């Protein structure tokens, strides 16, 4: 790039700059401000300290556990699916990807409500079970229901990056592996898997981050029987016990947690020079 950009080139970036400052930078500054001040606006570390007690640690552990489980389930479903998609004829690939993205076009609040009607004690699934003479199963308001909600809402974000890496793999590499003695299984483990790491890393990041911070899914499908970190933060900003300072501190800690896990994940892709780049 040669040095100076023209006035108009810079002007073209202005709307995005304004947007970033207003809706990304400013909120971050507010989070920092509230985290380190008390209700009078004086500097304090009490908010941060208050988080390191058992109540919040349990909430964090629960949140991480559910998010990890949801992410792993997404990975187990998405990886073979993405592989199958990438091996289909081009026309079918397009249809498969369209079907994958279809749920994303729906508001995920609506999706979550739909899952409520499915999972309720008197919901669709239990009605069907009763009809065919089986005992109803209690599903709503359990951690399992929350995980199902997370998996359903975030699965496309796992499939798409893995698929895009796999679809970009050079067919000649697969032929070369076959030529050098690999059967289909070894082609998968020796070539396709190592070369799709970057897609897996993007997928994990894109599922894990929204899973760990969700509050709506856990409220509707968890029914408030247990609290996740997202619910807790939301409670401090909109609930009955409003406390911006503790809420902001929790957000800050959550952000730091996410940044650390993303940094760890990206270390895996640093050494790989595969075709697809991580999307985050």
């Amino acid at each position, binding site marked *: 790039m040669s040095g100076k950009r023209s006035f108009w080139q810079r002007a073209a970036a202005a709307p995005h700059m304004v947007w970033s400052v207003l809706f990304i930078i400013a909120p971050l500054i507010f989070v920092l401000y509230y985290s380190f001040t008390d209700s009078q606006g004086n500097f304090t570390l009490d908010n941060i300290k208050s988080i390191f007690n058992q109540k919040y640690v349990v909430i964090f552990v629960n949140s991480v556990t559910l998010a990890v489980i949801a992410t792993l389930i997404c990975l187990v479903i998405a990886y073979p699916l993405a592989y199958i998609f990438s091996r289909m004829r081009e026309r079918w690939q397009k249809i498969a990807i369209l079907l994958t993205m279809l749920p994303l076009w729906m508001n995920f609040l609506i999706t979550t409500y739909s899952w409520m009607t499915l999972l309720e004690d008197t919901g669709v699934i239990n009605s069907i079970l009763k009809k065919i003479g089986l005992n109803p199963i209690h599903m709503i308001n359990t951690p399992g229901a929350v995980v199902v909600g997370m998996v359903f809402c975030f699965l496309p974000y796992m499939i798409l990056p893995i698929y895009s890496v796999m679809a970009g793999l050079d067919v000649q590499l697969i032929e070369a592996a076959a*030529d*050098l*003695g690999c059967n289909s299984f070894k082609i998968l483990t020796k070539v396709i898997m190592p070369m799709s790491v970057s897609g897996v890393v993007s997928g994990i990041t894109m599922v894990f981050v929204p899973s760990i911070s969700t509050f709506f899914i856990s409220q509707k499908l968890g029914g408030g029987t247990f609290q996740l970190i997202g619910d807790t933060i939301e409670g401090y900003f909109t609930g009955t016990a409003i406390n911006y300072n503790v809420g902001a501190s929790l957000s800050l800690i959550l952000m730091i947690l996410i940044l650390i896990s993303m940094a760890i994940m990206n270390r895996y892709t640093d050494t790989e020079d595969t075709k697809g780049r991580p999307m985050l």
Partner: protein
Amino acid sequence: MNGKKIIELRGITKSFDGEMVLDNIDLDIYDNEFITLLGPSGCGKTTTLRIIAGFETPDAGDVFFDGKRINDVPPYKRHINTVFQKYALFPHLNVYENIAFGLRIAKVPEKEISARVKEMLALVNLRGFERRRVTTLSGGQQQRVAIARALINNPRVLLLDEPLGALDLKLRKDMQNELKNMQHKTGITFIYVTHDQEEALSMSDTVVVMNAGKIMQIGTPTDIYNEPVNAYVADFIGESNIIDGLMISDKRVAFAGHRFDCVDTGFAPNEPVDVVIRPEDVDVVPVERGMLTGRVTTVTFKGVHYEVIVDIAGFKWMIQTTDYVAPDAEIGIYIEPDAIHVMKKSEYSGMFGDYSSYSEELDLLSENIEEDEEVNDDEKSAEYEEEEL
């Protein structure tokens, strides 16, 4: 050809989307030979190679390896390795691991792997590159890694699909020699695919000229060059003047309004024939000593020689001479009897060997088009492969 047959193709036919790519191919490949499939893009040479490798299955016909039918043997079970056109090195592995790949799959002990990789690196002149990432290598170096990766498995047959196509001229010449040496040293049968006739002639023991899914001629490079079977082969292998002639009797042929002595026999009296005369076999002489005379239309300096287009009785000849002749000059030409090659008439008669539309720009243009087609060809076969998986 001595030695025993290692690969036999019998009646191989293959079409893609209703388009015939190989039309009833029969080919014997012998142990230890360097055989080249030569032809323009789309002639079926790469498909033939892929059928031997096992990446494609023929619609009809059989492939035999050591006398055993291998149509249904998957690629990973064949004692055949391939050097791919675009190298197809594994980007997630370094040079050492790329070369060791086949041995690791075969679960060869670590100690032996290390020794054999070392040996291969020496053979392809890449000592000290073990830990380098393949993406940091130059085209020529990647090519060597690809060759080492294939050769280390001690295949019975090595397939090379236009392996030098992406290299520059100088490097290509060096690699041609190195490949030839490697073939001698290892004694492995090389099946080489190229559209470059010079490459085919200089490297091969046997050349197979293909066109439109058919084999035109199989022979040694000198046979193919000196005794082409038809106008297509004569034109594809180097420059040639191809003239309508009449075989008067054995060793007497008439063309361009004159009768010439030649060395060919076995034609019917007064049989119409195609006569091939290579541009370098025509001597320029003063008009009064010429067997034929004509007027020079263009002269192009080519470094080693001049390329001269001469109008002889309305037919444009190409002549290569080291002596300068001036445009528009009247010259005589002289042809030795053994420089005249007589061929039977074929479906290709009259299609090649006339330089009346000759122009350098056109030449360049058609070369570019050919290269473009080559790329499309690859993409096509890649697509087909994908569908199969």
